[in-house]
């Protein structure tokens, strides 16, 4: 316990200074959220590369939470669906249902190239399409996988902080 305390004191703050608020258009509906964005992550058929980056976007270094974004356990609690990966045939209906379970106003963020336009999986037999083919998408974050900074930047467009 003492060693943990020493470690905490020695390490201090690891979060990097916040970069300036990204410009570019913000989805209109995000303004209603008023700086608080609860996120439900849906893996629609990802290779888990994006998940690793999302994990580090909410880790101590990038600290997505400081901008008012938070991952939650149920789509009922969420404002935003963070969808990764191509939408496979088996995940298309669950994704639709998850979208339906979110109370309005709700937004969808497609994370990674696969989610945007199927990436390398385009045309594969198990793929139902990109995220926008299944549910309406408001923000897209490119990259394969996107850097944590890019994810944080995309989320800041929603929180406005």
């Amino acid at each position: 316990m003492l060693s943990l305390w020493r470690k905490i004191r020695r390490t201090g703050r690891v979060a990097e200074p916040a970069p300036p608020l990204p410009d570019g258009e913000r989805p209109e509906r995000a303004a209603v959220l008023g700086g608080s964005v609860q996120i439900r992550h849906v893996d629609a058929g990802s290779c888990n590369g994006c998940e690793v980056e999302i994990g580090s976007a909410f880790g101590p270094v990038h600290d997505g939470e400081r901008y008012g974004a938070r991952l939650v356990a149920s789509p009922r609690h969420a404002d935003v669906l963070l969808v990764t990966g191509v939408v496979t045939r088996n995940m298309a209906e669950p994704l639709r249902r998850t979208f339906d379970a979110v109370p309005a106003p709700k937004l969808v963020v497609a994370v990674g190239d696969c989610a945007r336009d199927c990436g390398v999986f385009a045309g594969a037999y198990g793929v139902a399409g990109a995220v926008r083919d299944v549910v309406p998408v408001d923000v897209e974050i490119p990259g394969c996988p996107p850097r944590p900074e890019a994810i944080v930047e995309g989320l800041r467009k929603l929180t406005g902080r």
Partner: protein
Amino acid sequence: MSALGVVGGVVQPVLIVAGSPLLVGVMRQVRARLEGRAGAGVGQPWRDLRKLLRKERIAPRGTSEVFRFAPLVLVATTLVVAVVVPFVATESALDPVADLFAVVALLALGAVALALAGLDTGTAFGGMGASREMTILALVEPTLLVAIFALSVRVGSTNLGTIVSSTLQDPARVISPVSLLAAVALVVVIVAETGRIPVDNPSTHLELTMVHEAMVLEYAGPDLALVELASAMRLSVFLGLLANLFAPWGIATEATPLAVLIGVLALMVKVGVLGGLLAAAEVFVAKLRLFRVPELLAGSFLLALLAVAASFFLA
């Protein structure tokens, strides 16, 4: 009903409702800093609540009035407790309700309402959360009541105003073994009742480890806002109770503006410090397995029994 009681009855609920999301904010901030993060700021829980109020209400198919009314009952019970317990002023607006047993039972009623709502959804997680919450409640109750027993024996009353006033008059009692043992027992109980680590993890995403969260998975929008507000309020109420049972100093004993202001500030400082300590302690411990929790509670029950024994044999 005295003037001081009325002032307390108005100021306290306002303070608790306004302040408890901030308390959660402070606790999250403390935790964030200890983890090397920057944190979302103290006001974030309030931003969350404001946003939830703007969202849509959802009635999951197959749920009944129980599901709809549970958040109201949950907040209402805590609100009544916030009105009657001497947090800011020693006198209570509703003195015959300001009884320790009544307060404990009221808080239990809120938990029961939520457990019934969890069962009402008919989902596996709702039932699981309700079952676990009720198990913990059943085990917490003996410790809580025996600790109260120890505290009230020396005063000869379970009325909270009387207990607080008598501690104010005789500060030496606070460092007696009875008080210390009872305080430790109560801390464990409060951790369990408010669903903090090591009993429950309020920020878990893994359904199988959930207790409180599992019951509220179906709530959305304003209903969820009520549930979140209530759980923050319960935390403040428990910490405020702990603070004023053992260190009531600063509480207003007369109805002057200055005294009430000091009372408000004292409560904010005490609850803030306790919350900060709790949050800091949480960084150092891991969540217990569900079936290790009874051992923790049995230990605290033993301490409470020792407190009673001490109150008799050392009196």
